[in-house]
């Protein structure tokens, strides 16, 4: 049986790592929700868009080449240079900030004070739009994402655990990097939200757009700031997931893995995203290992993550760390 | 004369009945905050009972206890002679207790008429099946209740905005619609939480008129929270004064007005007129 135990431990450890990756996506949702009460359906597409842009820039691809070629009959594809990863990340960030600015100017500025469902709707439009633009801009072939992150089994953990348990644990290097980055992100964002005036204003905006306006909080500024931050988080998530699976349309579907995390951690809590991610990661992996695969024929992870979150919610309707839903008359 | 258990007749000839509702030693806490501290009060049938007190005294909380939204940690609620078991708010409403809210709680997405009609919900019982067919039972019921609602709309002079979505109304009109919704329920007890906040004197006069008329015509018992002393003193039969969750006075307007505790805690100065 100790072997089973070791397996379970390994599964748990990997669940934790997977959870961190989910949390990275969930963080983007939390940021925007916290700052505007907008449930940003486009977060997944933003991650895709960021990753596409990064891959395209690194590769020196000509944006919109397909469209240009079709319309002008030219035959351009590449600039013929390769941009170093670091610079490319900076450039991508510039693009994401520009995107944030455009989103604010063209969309949300006109929708201040509307109900959440309507803002949600606008992000749906945005998702369609970005998906189309991303495809037009960079093409829909699979690009590999190589910014020099390590990947593959971590030898040190493998050996150490082998000595300790007689069974070497598999932990992916990429996951370790992701965990470190996620931890840094969360610490940074929590500090930002809790201790800065912008952070407080952000929460105020989420509560009441009008009132925030009335005390002079500039929604424009706050929203551009937050969408840029979310763009940054999307970029990080895009890099991680893109490294794992190549950059392609399906990247936008990782949003689906983030939703149960979000729900469990609470839509408004930055630490909640991480804790939620860890619980979901471990929960779904252990369930698959202990019950799903042996008794239910496997592939239970998707629904189990949601069921787990659902069960939590029945006891805490605002998620683990979410702000309590104020019910008063 | 007020001790007569079966009621009495007021100076202006209204019949006040026996106690219909009695709150016994109610204590309500929220975490560390004690919103209501061991308060008892009774409400007689057909009377206008005012609750006054400084901000945060626990008045609204008391209404919430009556309407079943807050469950007190301690104490009992007696209604019509028997102790009320733990109850959901909607069950309380079905017993004939309707109310308005301090922070307007109208259904913003619906028209004024629909809002008033929601007040009639406790009187409508056609099942899903008949409603889905509409013709027949459902339509008849709708029309009957619509008549009641229209009467109240006329009564409150909001005919002109009948079909307007509530979200487009100004604050004061919303208050009036809220009263209409509560009246539409034809309640036996009507709880009003600052119905006249945000109105000018003329409108307060109208509002007072409505309240008195309801009380007169239907014998509705009314519990009223209001900060306008003029209104309170003129309308109410008895007044409870609360401060920091405690009851510091209870009696006729005249008695209360001259109670030193009340003056200190609430009125500030003895009210001139």
């Amino acid at each position: 049986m100790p072997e089973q135990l070791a397996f379970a431990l390994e599964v748990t450890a990997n669940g934790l790592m997977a959870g961190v990756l989910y949390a990275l996506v969930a963080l983007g949702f939390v940021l925007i929700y916290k700052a505007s009460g907008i449930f940003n359906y486009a977060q997944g597409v933003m991650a895709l868009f960021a990753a596409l842009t990064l891959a395209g820039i690194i590769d020196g691809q000509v944006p919109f080449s397909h469209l240009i070629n079709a319309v002008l009959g030219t035959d351009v594809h590449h600039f013929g240079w390769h941009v170093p990863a670091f610079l490319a990340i900076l450039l991508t960030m510039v693009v994401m900030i520009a995107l944030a600015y455009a989103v604010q100017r063209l969309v949300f500025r006109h929708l201040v004070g509307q109900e959440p469902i309507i803002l949600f709707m606008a992000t749906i439009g945005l998702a369609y739009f970005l998906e189309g633009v991303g495809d037009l801009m960079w093409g829909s072939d699979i690009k590999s994402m190589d910014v020099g992150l390590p990947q593959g089994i971590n030898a040190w953990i493998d050996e150490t655990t082998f000595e300790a348990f007689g069974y070497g644990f598999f932990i992916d290097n990429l996951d370790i990097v992701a965990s470190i980055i996620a931890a840094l992100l969360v610490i940074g964002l929590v500090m930002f939200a809790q201790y800065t005036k912008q952070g407080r204003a952000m929460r105020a905006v989420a509560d009441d757009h009008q009132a925030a306006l009335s005390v002079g909080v500039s929604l424009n500024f706050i929203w551009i700031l937050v969408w840029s931050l979310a763009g940054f988080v999307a970029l990080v998530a895009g890099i991680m997931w893109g490294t794992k699976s190549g950059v392609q349309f399906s990247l936008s579907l990782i949003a689906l893995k983030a939703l149960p995390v979000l729900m469990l951690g609470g839509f408004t809590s930055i630490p909640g995203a991480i804790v939620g991610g860890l619980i979901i990661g471990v929960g779904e992996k252990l369930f698959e290992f202990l019950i799903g695969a042996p008794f239910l024929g496997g592939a239970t992870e998707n629904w189990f993550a949601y069921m787990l979150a659902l069960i939590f919610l029945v006891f805490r309707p605002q998620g683990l760390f979410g702000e309590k839903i104020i019910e008063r008359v | 004369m007020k001790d007569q258990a079966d009621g009495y007749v007021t100076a202006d000839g209204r019949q006040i009945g026996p106690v219909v509702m009695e709150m016994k030693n109610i204590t309500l806490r929220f975490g560390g905050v004690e919103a209501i501290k061991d308060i008892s009060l009774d409400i007689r049938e057909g009377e206008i009972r005012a609750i006054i007190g400084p901000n945060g005294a626990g008045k609204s909380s008391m209404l919430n206890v009556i309407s079943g939204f807050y469950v007190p940690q301690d104490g009992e609620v007696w209604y019509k002679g028997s102790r009320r078991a733990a109850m959901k708010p909607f069950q309380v409403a079905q017993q004939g207790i309707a109310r308005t809210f301090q922070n307007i709680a109208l259904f913003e997405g619906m028209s004024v008429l629909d809002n008033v009609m929601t007040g009639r919900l406790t009187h409508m019982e056609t099942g899903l099946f008949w409603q889905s067919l509409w013709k027949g039972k459902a339509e008849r019921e709708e029309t009957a209740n619509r008549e009641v609602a229209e009467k109240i709309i006329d009564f409150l002079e909001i005919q002109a905005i009948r079909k307007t979505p509530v979200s487009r109304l100004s604050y004061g009109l919303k208050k009036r619609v809220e009263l209409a919704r509560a009246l539409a329920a034809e309640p036996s007890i009507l709880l009003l939480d600052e119905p006249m906040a945000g109105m000018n004197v003329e409108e307060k006069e109208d509002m007072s008129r409505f309240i008195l008329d309801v009380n007169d015509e239907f014998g509705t018992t009314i519990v009223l929270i209001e900060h306008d002393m003029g209104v309170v003193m003129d309308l109410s039969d008895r007044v409870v004064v609360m401060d920091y969750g405690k009851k510091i006075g209870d009696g006729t307007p005249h008695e209360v007005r001259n109670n030193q505790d009340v003056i200190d805690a609430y009125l500030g100065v003895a009210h001139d007129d």
Partner: protein
Amino acid sequence: ELVFPSLSYRTGPYAANGIPFADGYADYFTLLNERDGGIGGEPIRMIECETGYNTEKGVECYESTKGEGALVYQPLSTGITYQLIPKATADGIPVHSMGYGRTSAKDGSVFKNIFNYPANYWDGASVAVKHLLDVNSGSLEGKKIALVYHNSAYGKEPIRTLEELSKKHGFELSLLPVDHPGQEQKSQWLQIRREKPDNVIMYGWGVMNQVAIQEAANIRYPMDQFMGIWWSGSENDVRPAGEKANGYKALTFHNVGDDFPVFDDIQKYVVGTGKAAGAGDQIGTALYNRGLYAAMLAAEAAKTAQGIHNTKAITPAQMRDGMEALEITEAKMTDLGLPGFGPEFSVSCENHGGNGLVAVSQWDAAADSWSLITGYEQSDQDVLTPLIAEDASAFAAESGITPGC
């Protein structure tokens, strides 16, 4: 005018796979038009319709093109194929689901208008096992084989076959479903790492492939013991894993690379004239070749039909006859500039599925190319024939068809 609709998907989750196939399909027809003036002198008109791999759009595409005189449909998605099986049959238009769709459509006595030559999913599974037998000197007794599959109708296809084969050859089969889209496969690969199966077979699609190969590399699963079906065997699937994908195997029913005379023609007549369907960068990739191969088979069937009915402008019904009488020989392929490009096979009324000849290819990461490492081998007909007969007769019973030729 010969109308060939192309239900392509250049958008959506599977665009990366849809683009090369559609390019290959289109380029071959363009080549025929440019070089030969069509088929038998009759010009070809290809109508492309974007499905996004979405069933409903597929229906729209079918309905909007069928009136144009479409000769044969290549639906390119299992979902759309299932839609079209009854519809196209009723409309008398043949469907060629090449290497996908409903396996039992091989039984032409039941599925009169549906063709799935030269190979189907069950052939794939069988040849995979056969290859493993070869590698393991003829015996799989006591070996463990894991099947990693897309948890959908498509992914579940080989299970029956593999179960039969495991009984026959005495290997142990374990099943590892991966839910759509398959970005997160930690559980499955940890399980593989624990159980250490001797071989892994994969029926994957889309991002699932890339992640699986990546994860296999991460746990250092030997790549040459890992084999995918042809839909898990494109450049797209292995490239994201880089070096580490070296040695990964995939089944295929056509050849790889661009070392065939026909590609010179394509360069000359299609790319050179600026009529290439895509950017031209897909030529010679596994999926491009598959598209080209599908177009070639369609053109050959049309030729056969022209021969049978002695008319140039054939109808869909005549096309169907051509498909049913199709015979692909080495000589023919050499003629077409495609020597050894696919297996030799012939189609008949009873057998719409060809001879079940499948080869194994292997990825060479350094050379960035696939290469065939076996010849075309036939699947285990003893096992498959009864399975197909069973499923086909069930369908016949369900939909009230009297089988017959």
